[in-house]
């Protein structure tokens, strides 16, 4: 029998239903996998006691015949979602020891559907980063190794690096993430996992530590497209506590999932062809087009002319919103307090000690961009460019139903690389940020390995509220790619 930790969510649900194993056994298998994989630093807080209690309750529910969509499925939760009674840090010293007295809507929905929480996963501080190297709680390590340089530890992508690493290393069947500019899709690509960010407004932001409110959106990691559909279905839904959450019913994405994409028009944006992009990625993209063509889709060349300006616009809008959102960390109501000469001194000392370098940089960029005399030149300008970027997509969708692009411009890189220049790190998100600015659903599906034996992902970007088409195209790529490679450490452990 397949190891319990290697199951997909769909197969685990079947096994639970058939009484092949209990939720408790499934959970215990994952708890012990986590215990023997602590070197990855994927979790900030492990919650085995909660997990076992939830699993036992799930087994009781199953015995009485009242189960939820994810009943008994052990998952990991990004430490950006507030969890009642369980430390929630956002990867920051300033929130170390913060124990929420309430539950985020996303985790509440997951628990209502029977999910079991194994722990809270590591992330870039306040979700600001693309390598999971800015967490106060240390770097997360990617379970994959470059076969030509096996000694180097690689980044798992970011900001949801703990979630991507945990799912890739078979420490959880699925995980929550959040995506502001690529924080689900890029780490999914770096770890050979599937990651989906739904349309802005699908998931409630209530109880999720805020970074950039006009961009932040929760989503899911898993090892198959179907599993991410199940996860997302259990997380999404209207919430009166978040006025930006959409009053729309959550479709039964997993039931409607199919790989019949005959007649769909898939747009290939020419601006995503970058100079100096690794040949492996270019080839894989081409291969992806071939797969979709063979499945009956039509490939259409499209143009998104303002693509080049997406990153600079993002690096005004996101820091500006962050500087406002993070003003709440003042040493008064929760989190760290460092005394000072007076109230102002207390604020300044608390924030100096509580925030890391990247967070400080972004708060200062944002504060500068919003300060008197610069507001129009930077913030308003960036919002105007944001409209042009969103309109690019609207126009492209007159010619096609969805877009296919690479997820990231490189495979996973070594920890410590790209640290000398913040802009080099920002460029990781060059293919993911435009869809974020336009609020569109996007998904990364593992589609192949590069010459170093590292996974590469293809990104599907859909129309607003059309996650189903994104998932169906993802399913088609998954079926064609037959991606079965596993990180070396997983193979060794299974042996």
């Amino acid at each position, binding site marked *: 029998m397949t190891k319990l930790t290697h199951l997909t969510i769909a197969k685990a649900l079947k096994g639970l239903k058939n009484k092949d194993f209990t939720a408790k056994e499934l959970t215990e298998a994952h708890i012990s996998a986590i215990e023997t994989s602590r070197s990855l630093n994927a979790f900030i807080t492990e919650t085995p006691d909660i997990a076992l209690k939830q699993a036992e309750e799930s087994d009781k529910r199953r015995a009485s015949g009242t189960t939820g969509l994810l009943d008994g499925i052990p998952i990991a939760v990004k430490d950006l979602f507030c969890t009642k009674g369980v430390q929630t840090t956002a990867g920051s010293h300033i929130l170390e020891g*913060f124990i929420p007295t309430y539950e985020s809507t996303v985790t509440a929905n997951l628990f209502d559907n029977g999910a079991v929480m194994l722990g809270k996963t590591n992330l870039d501080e306040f979700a600001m980063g693309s390598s999971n190297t800015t967490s106060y709680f240390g770097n997360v390590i990617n379970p994959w190794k470059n076969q030509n340089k096996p000694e180097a530890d690689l980044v798992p992508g970011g900001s949801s690096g703990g979630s991507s690493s945990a799912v890739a290393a078979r420490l959880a069947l699925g995980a929550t993430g959040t995506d502001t500019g690529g924080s689900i899709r890029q780490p999914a690509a770096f770890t050979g996992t599937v990651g989906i960010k739904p349309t802005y407004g699908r998931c409630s932001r209530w109880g999720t530590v805020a970074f950039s409110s006009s961009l932040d959106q929760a989503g899911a990691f898993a090892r198959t497209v179907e599993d991410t559909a199940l996860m997302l279905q259990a997380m999404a839904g209207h919430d009166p506590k978040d006025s930006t959450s959409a009053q729309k019913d959550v479709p039964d994405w997993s039931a409607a999932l199919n790989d019949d994409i005959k007649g769909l028009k898939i747009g290939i944006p020419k601006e995503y062809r970058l100079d100096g992009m690794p040949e492996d990625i270019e080839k894989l993209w081409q291969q992806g087009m071939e797969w979709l063509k063979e499945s009956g889709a039509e490939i259409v060349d499209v143009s998104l002319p303002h693509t080049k300006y997406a990153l600079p616009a993002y690096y005004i809008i996101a820091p500006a919103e962050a500087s406002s959102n993070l003003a709440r960390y003042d040493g008064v109501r929760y989190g760290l307090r460092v005394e000072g000469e007076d109230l102002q001194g207390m604020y300044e000392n608390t924030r100096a000690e509580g*925030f890391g370098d990247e967070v400080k940089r972004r708060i200062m960029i944002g504060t500068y961009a919003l300060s008197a005399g610069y507001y129009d030149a930077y913030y308003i300008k960036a919002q*105007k460019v944001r409209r042009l970027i969103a309109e690019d997509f609207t126009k492209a969708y007159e010619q096609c139903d969805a877009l296919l692009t690479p997820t990231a411009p490189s495979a996973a890189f070594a920890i410590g690389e790209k640290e000398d220049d913040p802009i080099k790190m920002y460029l990781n998100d060059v293919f993911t940020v435009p869809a974020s600015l336009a609020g569109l659903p996007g998904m990364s599906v593992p589609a192949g390995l590069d010459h170093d034996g590292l996974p590469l992902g293809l990104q599907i970007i859909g129309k607003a509220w059309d996650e189903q088409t994104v998932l169906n195209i993802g399913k088609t790529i998954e079926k064609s790619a037959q991606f079965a490679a596993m990180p070396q450490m997983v193979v060794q452990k299974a042996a």
Partner: protein
Amino acid sequence: MLEIQAEHRKTLNMTIDKETVQKVAGLARIKVTDAEQEKLAPQLSHIIGWIEQLSEVNTDNVEPLANVVDITPPLRKDEVTDGGYPADVLANAPEELEGFFVVPKVIE
């Protein structure tokens, strides 16, 4: 028109010096040491300089986009629907006293 745009670019094309770093850090309520100011000034200038490529984009007659999806924020009745648990609100306070947050003295 072109002249105005060139002028616009000139005013934007500025470096962030140590003094500006100090001023912005003050606004952001983050204590920044002299050595950190030295380090941050060129870093922030570099980032802002890169962002300034936005000035190449013609945004005449473009409305700023604040709301990305087509959702009209719903209205509800103005009534109290939640609250009444001061212990929960104060549970994570670094310092509290008799149901209040405690801050350093602000009035001499």
